[in-house]
């Protein structure tokens, strides 16, 4: 599993096996999770993503796409 998905599993406090591109961003996708995700993307991809655009994401796969744009 990639560093990005490992990190997302930690942020949502789920097993790594449960984390994947289809993981929905509903419960637990709050301001704290957004900030943690910004930090993760900074660490993994060395870039910053807009918090506003991050909040518009529906799944973890959307976040990955945003991070790789």
């Amino acid at each position: 599993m990639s560093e990005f998905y490992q990190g997302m599993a930690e942020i949502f406090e789920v097993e790594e096996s449960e984390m994947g591109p289809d993981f929905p961003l509903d419960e637990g996708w709050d301001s704290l999770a957004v900030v943690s995700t910004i930090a993760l993307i900074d660490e993994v991809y060395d870039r910053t993503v807009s918090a506003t655009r991050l909040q518009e994401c529906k799944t973890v796969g959307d976040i990955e796409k945003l991070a790789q744009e």
Partner: protein
Amino acid sequence: MTIGSTPIASGQAVRVDGARIAGLVSCIPPRRIDNEYFLEEFGDSVADTTKMTGVRTRYWVDEGVTASDLCTAAAVSLLDDLAWPRDTVDAIIFVSQTPDYRLPATAGVIQAKLGLRPAIIGLDINLGCSGYVYGLWLAMTLVGSGAAKRALLVVGDTSSSLIDPADRATAMLFGDAGTATAIEAGDAQAHFILGTDGRGADNLIVPSGAYRSAEHRSSNDPCKLFMDGGEIFNFTLKSVPKLVAETVQFAGLPIESYDAFLLHQANAFMVNHLAKKAKLPPDKVPMNIDRYGNTSSTTLPLLMTDDLADRLAREGARLALFGFGVGYSWGGASLEVGPLACVKTISYDSGR
């Protein structure tokens, strides 16, 4: 004397000669607020928020006590300890976003309370997290230029009066404090980098209460503090590691020669991440947000009077200071501090 100024990527780079810090005192209100206080409002999410912010306790003023009261108490203690006669202070600068009045400037209010000479330089600066670095630069510049032989920099905020008690992102984060720093002429050199970017003004703001009174996109009370934590974090990621690198480079000393790197105590998660990204040795990045919360412009002096007090009193230290946040505004400083005749944290006694 100010030696030129050069625009570089992070901001204006300025070297200031001929001024030194003589001492500093922080003053904390006595009312301690533990995280249990928030359980009723926020329930289980208190633990999650604490994990991120790192704040376990913070101190809030009682009603009727302002930042200027805390700063005045700190200044009284400082002037007494340094044995500075009141009439030897030539300038007072108050840095705050929670002044006593919209007008007049609070610097004069503190001047009168302290019994300083009635005809000195006095002004307020409206800055938050970057404010201590800006205040230090201006006070040292006044002294270095000869405009003042001794200057008092009073920096304080009572953010508890701004926070929206229903906003989890800010209600648990901020603490109150006031500080006083004495600057006098001396054979010393300090390097500063100062920057501003008002394009981020909307992301950390009290939208109402002054003269623009715009409707704001958030549904929060427009008289209370609004913070877009994600955007603020993005701003720090882009600006702070660069500011750290450029400040160290501008001062021209190797990173190993620094005894401590003081980062504005924004929140624990952010400070840890920024320190790592800036490649700073963790043992040289003191933290005290767990005890005091984010005290806005006073986090840097509070690190000096708290975690570093013994060191600064005994032998002094080569410090790098970094303030960043609301504005956006930021400042970096590299300077030698101490040994100081007075460096301590006191508790506010309203009976004084």
